[in-house]
């Protein structure tokens, strides 16, 4: 049986959540409320974000108040309730990258892509994020796009990074 429902929110980029698929994920964790974080992660992997309808469905199924599910969904930086871009650009603002000019790089990304840090471009291609130390400080300032690293970046190399995708 396939149930589905349109995701509300109406801010564009809404997906239709396949509730049967969500049920499958819930089952994988034994329908146990202790597995809610894992469920959210799996759902996010599926849709690249956490659709509101999916959160509501998980809470309903587990008998967890929606307010509590929302707490979990907003607590972890790894979970996003907003639709995410195809690629995630992480600009490191850890201590080393910060000192080496990371803030200028992220500002240039904001200008180049016309987004604010934390947001996704209108064409849903990129989500821009700042992170705190990716563990490769020798390459500061570091930019990571999904799995690919760009070291020693400057505002001037931002265009090149964007073009690479």
């Amino acid at each position, binding site marked *: 049986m396939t149930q589905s429902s349109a995701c509300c929110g109406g801010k564009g980029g809404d997906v239709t959540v396949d509730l049967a698929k969500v049920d499958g994920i819930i089952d994988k964790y034994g329908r146990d409320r202790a597995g809610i974080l894992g469920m959210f992660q799996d759902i996010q992997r599926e849709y690249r974000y956490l659709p*509101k309808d999916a959160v509501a469905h998980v809470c309903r199924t587990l008998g967890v*108040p*929606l*307010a*509590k*599910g*929302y*707490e979990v969904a*907003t*607590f972890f930086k790894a979970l996003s*309730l907003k639709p995410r871009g195809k690629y995630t650009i992480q600009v490191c603002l850890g201590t080393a990258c910060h000192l080496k000019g990371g803030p200028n790089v992220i500002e240039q990304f904001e200008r180049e892509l016309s987004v604010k840090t934390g947001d996704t471009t209108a064409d849903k291609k990129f989500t821009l994020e700042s992170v705190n130390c990716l563990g490769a400080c020798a390459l500061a300032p570091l930019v990571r796009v999904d799995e690919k690293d760009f070291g020693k970046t400057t505002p001037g190399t931002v265009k090149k990074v964007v073009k690479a995708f």
Partner: protein
Amino acid sequence: MPKVNLSVDGKKIQADKGAFLLDVCRDNHIPVPSLCHNEALGSDGRCRLCVVEVRRGNRTRMVTSCLFPAAEGVEAITQSANIALVRKTVLELLWARCPESDEIARLARSHGVSDVRYQKDNDKGKCILCNLCIRTCESVVGVSALGLSGKGPVKKVTTPFDEPSETCIGCGACAFVCPTGHIQMWDKEGVRNIWGRKFEMAACAKCGTHFAPLYQLEYISKTSGASMDRLRTCPDCR
């Protein structure tokens, strides 16, 4: 319940083993300030205003009295220069967070804080994140319409997705329990407004006063089995 012997401010006290120090103090009329403790809801350890010093053997440490269990031989002190300093710091930080709150200002001043040296927030309203509203909604009202969202500087009390909550019954218990008056609720022309929702108020069958949201009465009727006829009369006329 096994008893233990302890002392607070030099006064010998017998208390239930494991009872929290704050409750023990209050039972013995020793005042300790607090913001997040509530008699009905118990302790939550959020505000840190209830700190006291505890000596055991030759070790002294600062503890949150609302979560510190009474044990044999504990010597507690509720007033000292150190304690005053911690409480002042807590209140100064809360005041910096909630400059609009008269209640926090009053409390801070009464503890000797005259001014805030930190940068003041302007986006937190009067909320000190004591959690009383959420706990009340969950364990007293039983509808869990409220929760926290986010963490760190953006953490706040809200309804799911910042939208009007479907489970809210409009009872106003959260607004009632809030120590700072952060939660906005107003009744106007027979309608209650709270958390972005509007609730039609029931008029008492006898005196006509709008005394409670109709929806709340229906909820009470459903969960307690009391008849709507009875509930539709306000407590004063019953």
